[in-house]
């Protein structure tokens, strides 16, 4: 079992005055994509996390493009690493957590 700690962007415009990053810990017996890791946080640690999960999961649609450790990358093709920080692209209106307006 491998342990991943991920820092995920949280912001609920209804209750929060400013966004924050929260750390989560998940386990996996093999490599995960960042997308799979986010889904695992939502499934097993904190179901109040808002995420998008209607996209292609194979690098085609571009919907999952996010800031991953300071760089804009596709969450579905990027391999998750312990300690990663994941949030919305800059200058996007955040609807909640990891759900933000598309261009």
């Amino acid at each position, binding site marked *: 079992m491998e342990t991943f700690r991920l820092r995920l962007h949280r912001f609920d*415009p209804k209750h929060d005055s400013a966004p924050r990053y929260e750390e989560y810990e998940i386990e996996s017996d093999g490599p995960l994509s960042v997308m799979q890791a986010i889904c695992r946080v939502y499934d097993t640690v904190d179901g109040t996390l808002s995420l998008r999960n*209607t996209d292609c999961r194979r690098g085609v649609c571009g919907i999952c493009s996010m800031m991953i450790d300071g760089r804009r990358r596709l969450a579905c093709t990027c391999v998750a690493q312990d300690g990663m920080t994941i949030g919305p692209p800059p200058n996007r209106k955040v609807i909640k957590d990891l759900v933000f307006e598309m261009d």
Partner: protein
Amino acid sequence: MIDATIDADVLVVGGGGGGLRAAIEAHAAGARVLVLSKGIVGKSGLTQTAVTGFQVAFGCADPRDNPSVHYADTMRGSYGLANPELVDIFTREGAATVEDIESFGARFDRDDDGNFIQRRLDSSQTYPRSIKKGDSLGTPIMQALRRQMNKCDIPRRHEILVTKLLKDGNRISGAVALDFQTGELLEIRARSVIMATGGGGELFPVNSNTPDSTGDGCALALGAGADLVDMEFILMLGHAVMFPETVRGVLFTFQYLLDKGARALFNAEGEPFLSRYDPEGSDNPPRHIYARAIHGEVRAGRGSPHGGVFFDPGSVPLETVVDALPSQTQFLQSFGVDMRQPIEVGVAAHYFCGGIRIGPDSLSTVPGLYGVGECSGGPHGAARVGGNSLTEVLVFGKRAGRHAAETAATANAPTNDPDEVETECRRLLGFLEGSRNGPRPSEIKKRIKQTMNDHVGVVRDAAGLKEALDAFEEIAMRNLPAMALASPERIANYDWIQAIEATSMTRVGEAVARAALMRTESRGAHYREDHPDQIDDEWLQNIVVRQRGKELSVSSVPVNSATYGEETG
């Protein structure tokens, strides 16, 4: 309880290939169109992930090919159950559809003389017939459709889950929907409604589909009184990567490497096995035979460590692999798959052959309600031939759009039943109530997937199917009403979406299991271990599933016997 009401002549539900094609045509025919999609319009669904098959009988690779041969191949590939009228239409109108898509800005691969490059996918095609664009057809097709949508400025809303179809007497009158981003409930009044909601692969734990493929269109159409047909036929593929977990279920169309020196699939004992399972003895049989063969090897203990078998590129140089399958190779390599070593491949749920029973204009058995693409049934019968889906999606998308616009022009302004709207709003808001203490929606989805996998998958029998029906009844009676969401918030609450999806999936799973139990033979994608033979005397019949009240009923009918646009008894 409704937060906003929207009017449209033609409501298109689904933002994939079928939905966009229908919207463009309905707009061109003068209708006020609205496209709603659970995902981002034009960037969700399965069409964008389509890989290598688009069958149109241009006859470029072999001049003997033409629409009649394509028709004959398709009817044979459907094991006699496709609706011949529909097959005739999409095999003849395929060429015009390619022209349309190219006029919207796509360009498919051609040789130096300007002829389409056409390839053979498997032994079901008499001549090489599939046109191509690299190894991913879905992307250029969706790009072209998006461009045309934008050019026509067709109104659309992203991330809207349609949850119920509404009727004014016999006729369709609109829908209720949930806006994922805002949590608002919407009422749509529409003269025609086109369902283009895609497939239901998400009913299975390992699948090649996108997560929004939860079979919603079939569940919604059942609720509106429409017939579903051929629901027992779910295409399982043997072309999915099984390991690593990151890419489990992802398609790898290694068939294209077989004539380049790759080895045929082999089991853990190093033995090739496909020809043992194919009545014709082929090393590259139709797709559902792959699935059954791999399932058989795994069950006999001759599988790979992660529940598949092995594909070995053998002597094929890496450059050739990359050249034949560029984007697939790149995706697999990004997760560390070594394309020079044997790869574990196995079974994944891929395609719902059946769905909303449609006629030549894509009209269902309910006036004003259309079905397009994978959520429809009739064009493929007992097994969909590779590469026929894109053809059918685009041909019937266009037909539905035009017919729906024409009908809308003469239909009276619809009135939704306020009681129906209110009941639906209460149901949706009920999911957010805090008094529930059962499992989360994702847990219930897991149970549905396990049930489908264990009893309604590659190999079926009466005992297992009855067990599945018992499980679905229990899920419907006990699990769904107790389902508890992690958050009661309305904004961007994915648990809420999943709760609604789980309800639809339960209905669709039941429809599949009922049809599969009724069909006491094996044919195409449906294999009954307790009835292994194909029985043409008895079963050259379609099975229709209907909902009356809360109950589902199944009946068998002769092929192509429905009256469309008129609700049946």
